[in-house]
Every structure is written in structure tokens, then in C-alpha cells.
């Protein structure tokens, strides 16, 4: 793909992503900046807030399907979830239960809880988790799109994995504790957060795709996220988790832990997956990596 025609998802703001993701002109924002409230918690801490509290919610069309969307703004406080930010997302997901749109698209770009809002942020994240599961139980697929500079970490990493499916770019990252958190808690010997290549080999989109943690890998391009989301929804059948399916999933995760739990680096896991030249994985483009995965023994 020519670089000149790309509109990087990673570099774009939440509003730019929505404008390019949805059918042109179809987006209608709920609680737009002129009527929304900035965070009262940040004001109390003498910090400037954002009119939309760092998340844009609304309705629109994706390939003529009616969808609800939430887009986090990673450039505002790392996309972290505060009380109002969380309430907007929860309200949107509850609306999905009532309206039954074709899908909810969740453009995640967040380090998790907004620490300035402490308990309010933690409660907000837990409410989002419940609301995602409620929407899915009502038959509405919730698709996480992860390709922003803040990735999906902390509580938002969990939320991403509660969604029906995750669409990622190589630039996206998805994990629980962020690299700096791991280094701070367990030491640089455990994880060197400054080693960007290592961070991406462990949390980045390519690794997540190889590990089946995301359903689709797309280029860092707004149009590619749009195509990827449309293709995913074309053959998506939302099926609520049953106890048996959850047990099977748990067994797969346990198997994965015993197979790769001792690995220190994505490279070791890729070798164990049967990739002959694992050090070449970071050099492959999106299509080459997808082809590589299709050729792997299952």
C-alpha cells in the first residue's frame, strides 16, 4: 500500500477515526462537547478537563449497518477512564440493549482507570464490563478496535477481551498490566519497558494475532479498520457464552500457560508455534503475517 494514501489510525484523534470509519456523514454524536460536562474530579484537582471527557459516543452507519460507537481519545490523559467518560460508554452500551443495533464498535485507546478519579474510575470500568456482557447477551456484537498510541491496558485490556472480537493493527497493543507498571513492580530484569521492540513483541498486534487474541489484523490505516470491521461483521453470529464454552476457553488458556509460561519474549513463543524464522516476524507486513499464520500447524 502506498504510504501517501494512508490515514494512520495510530496518529489520528478519536474524532478523525470515527469520521473515516463510518459511512461519510452518518455519524451523530450523543452528548456533544457543547452540552457535555467536563470531569468535576479533574477540576477539583486543579487540572483542565476536556469537554467530552476523552470519549466520543454516538450512532452511525458502517457499510449501511446501523451501529453505535464509542471512541476513546488517547491524547487526553492517556484515554483513561474517569467517571463521566465511563458513564458515557455505559449509557451507550445500555442503549444498544434497548435499540439492538447491528453492532457496537468500541474504539479503545486507553491505559485503563484514570487514577485521578480513583474509585469512581474503577467503578466505571466494572460497569463497562457488565454493560459489554449485557449487550452481547442481548445479541448485539461488541467489536473492539485497538490501534491507538495508548493501546488497551489495565481495565480496558480486560474490557477488550470481554468484547465479541478484537480488530487490531500491528501498532496496537493489548495486555493487562502496562510495560512500565511491570517494570516498576517486578524490576527491569523481569521486563524492560524502554525496550520498545520487546514491548511490541509481547503486547503488539502481530503477537496478539498469532496467539488468536484478536480476530483480525489490519494495516495502520483508518480505511483498513473500516474494511476489517465490515468483513468481520459480514459473517459474525453473536453467540452468548455458555458455561461449557467458558470452560473450554479456560482450558485453552491453561494449556497456553503451560506451553509458553516460561517464555521471556514473543520470539520464543513464535519459535514454539513452529515459525522457522521468528526474528523475521516484526519485518513482515500485515498480509505476509496473515499468510504465515494460515500456514502454521494448528
Amino acid at each position: 500500500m502506498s504510504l501517501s494514501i494512508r490515514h494512520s489510525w495510530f496518529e489520528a484523534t478519536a474524532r478523525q477515526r470515527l469520521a473515516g470509519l463510518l459511512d461519510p456523514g452518518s455519524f451523530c454524536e450523543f452528548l456533544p462537547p457543547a452540552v457535555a460536562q467536563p470531569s468535576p474530579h479533574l477540576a477539583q484537582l486543579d487540572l483542565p478537563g476536556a469537554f467530552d471527557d476523552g470519549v466520543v459516543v454516538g450512532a452511525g452507519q458502517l457499510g449501511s449497518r446501523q451501529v453505535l460507537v464509542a471512541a476513546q481519545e488517547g491524547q487526553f490523559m492517556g484515554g483513561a477512564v474517569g467517571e463521566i467518560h465511563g458513564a458515557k460508554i455505559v449509557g451507550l452500551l445500555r442503549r444498544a440493549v434497548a435499540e439492538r443495533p447491528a453492532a457496537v464498535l468500541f474504539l479503545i485507546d486507553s491505559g485503563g482507570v484514570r487514577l485521578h478519579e480513583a474509585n469512581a474510575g474503577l467503578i466505571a470500568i466494572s460497569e463497562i464490563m457488565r454493560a459489554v456482557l449485557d449487550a452481547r447477551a442481548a445479541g448485539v456484537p461488541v467489536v473492539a478496535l485497538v490501534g491507538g498510541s495508548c493501546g488497551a491496558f489495565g481495565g480496558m485490556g480486560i474490557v477488550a477481551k470481554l468484547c465479541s472480537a478484537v480488530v487490531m493493527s500491528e501498532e496496537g497493543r493489548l495486555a493487562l498490566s502496562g510495560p512500565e507498571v511491570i517494570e516498576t513492580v517486578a524490576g527491569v530484569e523481569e521486563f524492560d519497558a524502554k525496550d520498545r521492540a520487546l514491548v511490541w513483541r509481547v503486547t503488539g498486534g502481530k503477537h496478539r494475532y498469532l496467539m488468536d487474541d484478536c480476530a483480525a489484523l489490519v494495516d495502520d490505516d483508518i480505511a483498513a479498520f473500516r474494511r476489517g470491521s465490515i468483513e468481520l461483521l459480514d459473517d459474525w453470529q453473536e453467540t452468548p457464552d455458555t458455561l461449557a464454552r467458558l470452560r473450554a476457553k479456560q482450558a485453552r488458556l491453561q494449556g497456553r500457560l503451560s506451553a509458553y509460561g516460561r517464555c521471556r519474549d514473543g520470539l520464543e513463543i513464535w519459535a514454539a508455534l513452529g515459525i522457522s524464522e521468528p526474528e523475521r516476524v516484526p519485518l513482515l507486513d500485515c498480509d505476509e503475517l496473515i499468510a504465515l499464520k494460515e500456514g502454521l500447524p494448528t
Partner: protein
Amino acid sequence: MEKLEFKFPSQALLAAAPPALCGVVGSGNLEILVRSGVDRQICEISVNTSARGFGETWRAVLATFAASQAVGGTSIAINDMGATPAVVSLRLAQALADYRGGAQ
């Protein structure tokens, strides 16, 4: 954080439009929300900025904007995270262009 309020006389902007937002409250950046105001000859600007002690710099940048553009009848709200005067001027021009675009 410092809160600043300004009122500048300015030539009336032709048509009121839906609110326009541009920019993000990120490091060295700011967001600007332009709405229609009350007085057709006045541009009202309120600023929340993380950097204290730059009131006179803000006044100079915003006065230049209000004097060189027809922005009477607008109410502008700014959330700032340490943007430089050059960034502020560029964002103001961008916000005004977005607002004018919405009027058509």
C-alpha cells in the same frame, strides 16, 4: 490551573452555526469550542489552562485573533495543556474555519 476570561470587540461574524470543536487537551495542545454568543460585536473567550502566569500572553494572542478576524457574536471556550502561542493561533484559525464551514 488558571481560569481566564476575556471580551474583545470584533467585527460581526456573518452567520451563527452549530458548535465546532477542534484540537485535543493533550501535552502542548489544546481544544477549542466555538459557539454562537450573545453580543454580535463581541467575542467572548474563556480559557482553562494548566500553565499559570501567562495571562498577558493569552490576552495578546487572543486580542490579535479577535482584531484580525471577524469573530463578533461568538463565544469561545478553551481547555489548554500548555500549548505555545503559535499552536494556540493555529488552532484558533482551524476552529474558526470549522465553525464557518458548519454555517454553510
